[in-house]
C-alpha cells in the first residue's frame, strides 16, 4: 500500500499498429485515463512494469450517438463526453444514466468508457448498463479486427476476453428499436462479504410493439452480484407479449431471484440483499417500460434518481 507509484516504463505510440507492436515487445499494459490503473498501482494491487498510453493515438476519439445508427464510443472518449448529447440521453438512457451517476462525478472527466468496460471490475456500473443496450467491443489485435459481444467479454474479475496485445478500439451499441426505452439504477450500501463498493446495479431495456400495448422485447441485466453482469432470459421471456403492469414487473424480478445464487455466508445479509435486488429490478424494468411507452425525456428523471440514491 503505497503513497506513490513504483517506477515503470512508459510509451506513447501514435498509431494502433505501433501500440500493438510496443505491447508485443515490452508486454506493456494499455493505459487510457488511468482511473482503474493508477489507484491499483498505488495500492500495489497491480505491479505493471510498462504502460502504453493510447492517448496520443489518432482515431480513437470517435463519439457518435444516433437513433438509427447506434452509439459509437472510441477508446479515448471520456465518460462525461456522453452527458450533453441529446441522443445519448434519449435513446441510450441506461448508459447515460450510469454515467450521470458515476460517483464521484469527477471520474467522468478522466476515465474512458472503454476503459471502464475493459477493467472487468465486478462493481463497475457501465458494463451493466452497456449490456442492457446490447453493446459490443471492437478490437484490433495481432491477427486483425474482432467484434466481441459484451455478454461474452468477461472471463473473471479483472480478466476480459481480449487476447494479449489486443487493443479495444471502440465500443458500439446497435440502434434501439423505435418504441423502446432503457434505464439504469443502483443501490448503494448493499453489503456483501468481499471487498466492493457495497452496491448492486441493474439495467433494462424494453421495446413495445407498434401499438405500444404489449412488450415485444426485453433485456434485463443485474450487476455487481457476481464478478460480471448477467442477463436473465427467463424473466425477459416472461415479459414478452405481455401488457405491462406492476405485478408483471414484480414477477419478472422474482424470476430473476430464482436464478441468483447466494454469495455470502450470512443468511440475514443474503435475505436483505435478495429483497433489495428485487426492488431494484422491478423499479428498473418499470421505468424502462414507462420510458418506452411515453418516450419521456430522461434528463429530468435521471437527476431525480441521483437525488434519491445518494
Amino acid at each position, binding site marked *: 500500500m503505497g503513497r506513490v507509484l513504483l517506477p515503470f516504463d512508459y510509451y506513447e505510440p501514435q498509431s494502433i499498429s505501433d501500440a500493438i507492436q510496443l505491447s508485443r515487445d515490452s508486454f506493456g499494459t494499455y*493505459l487510457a485515463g488511468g482511473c482503474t490503473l493508477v*489507484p491499483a498501482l498505488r495500492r500495489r494491487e497491480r505491479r505493471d512494469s510498462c504502460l502504453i498510453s493510447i492517448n496520443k493515438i489518432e482515431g480513437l476519439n470517435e463519439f457518435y450517438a444516433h437513433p438509427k445508427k447506434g452509439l459509437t464510443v472510441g477508446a479515448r472518449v471520456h465518460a462525461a463526453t456522453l452527458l450533453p448529447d441529446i441522443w445519448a440521453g434519449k435513446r441510450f438512457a441506461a448508459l447515460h444514466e450510469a454515467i450521470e451517476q458515476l460517483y*464521484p462525478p469527477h471520474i467522468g472527466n478522466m476515465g474512458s468508457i472503454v476503459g471502464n468496460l475493459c477493467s472487468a471490475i465486478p462493481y463497475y456500473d457501465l458494463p451493466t448498463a452497456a449490456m442492457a443496450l446490447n453493446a459490443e467491443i471492437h478490437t484490433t489485435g495481432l491477427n486483425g479486427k474482432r467484434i466481441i459481444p459484451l455478454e461474452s467479454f468477461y472471463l473473471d474479475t479483472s480478466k476480459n476476453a481480449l487476447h494479449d496485445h489486443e487493443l479495444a478500439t471502440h465500443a458500439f451499441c446497435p440502434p434501439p428499436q423505435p418504441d423502446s426505452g432503457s434505464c439504469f439504477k443502483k443501490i448503494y450500501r448493499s453489503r456483501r462479504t468481499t471487498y466492493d463498493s457495497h452496491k448492486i446495479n441493474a439495467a433494462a431495456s424494453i421495446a413495445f410493439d407498434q401499438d405500444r400495448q404489449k412488450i415485444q422485447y426485453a433485456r434485463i441485466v443485474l450487476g455487481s452480484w457476481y464478478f460480471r453482469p448477467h442477463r436473465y432470459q427467463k424473466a425477459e421471456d416472461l415479459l414478452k407479449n405481455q401488457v405491462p403492469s406492476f405485478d408483471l414487473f414484480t414477477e419478472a424480478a422474482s424470476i430473476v431471484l430464482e436464478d441468483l445464487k447466494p454469495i455470502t455466508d450470512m443468511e440475514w445479509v443474503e435475505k436483505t440483499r435478495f429483497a433489495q435486488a428485487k426492488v431494484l429490478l422491478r423499479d428498473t424494468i418499470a421505468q424502462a417500460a414507462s420510458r418506452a411507452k411515453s418516450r419521456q425525456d430522461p434528463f429530468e428523471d435521471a437527476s431525480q434518481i441521483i437525488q434519491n440514491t445518494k
Partner: protein
Amino acid sequence: MKTIATFHVNGQEYDTVIEPHMVLADILRDNLNLTGTKRACSGGNCGACTVLVNGRPTCSCITLGMLARDKDIETVEGLASTKNGLSTLQTAFVQNNAAQCGFCTSGMLMTAEALLRENPQPTRQEVKIAISGNICRCTGYIKIVDAIMEAVSTLQTINNHNEKA
C-alpha cells in the same frame, strides 16, 4: 525514465523534470511548489486534489503527470489575483465560513469554479450534485453550498450592472 515536461498552470508555463510514475498532484506540489492542491486519499475518492484540466474538474491524485502535459491546468493558486484580490467565490467562502480546517477547500473551490463557468445560474440542487464527490469532514456542507449560492447571486448582480453600463 526522466523526462522534461511542460505544464501550463494558471496561465504560466513550467518546465520540470518528471518521471512517468509521478501523478499530477505531486508534480504540482513538489516540483512546482503549488501546495494549495491537497492530497487526502490519493484514490480519486474525495475531491481534495481537484484541479481543472482543460476546464474540467479532475482528481490530480490519480492523473499521471504524463497525461496532463500540454493541457491547461488551473489550481487554487490561480483563483485570486494580485490586482483584484480574492475571487467572488473565495470571498463568499470567507464570508460564510465555508472553510473550517480548510483541507477540502481548494478542491471545493475548483469544482465550484468549473460549475459556475459552465452553468452561471445553478440551482441549489445542481450545486449539490456538482460537489457531491468532494468530501468535507468539518462543515456539514451547508455553509459551502450557501457560499456558492451567494457567489452565484453576486456574480449575477455584477453581470447585470455591467450590462447596464
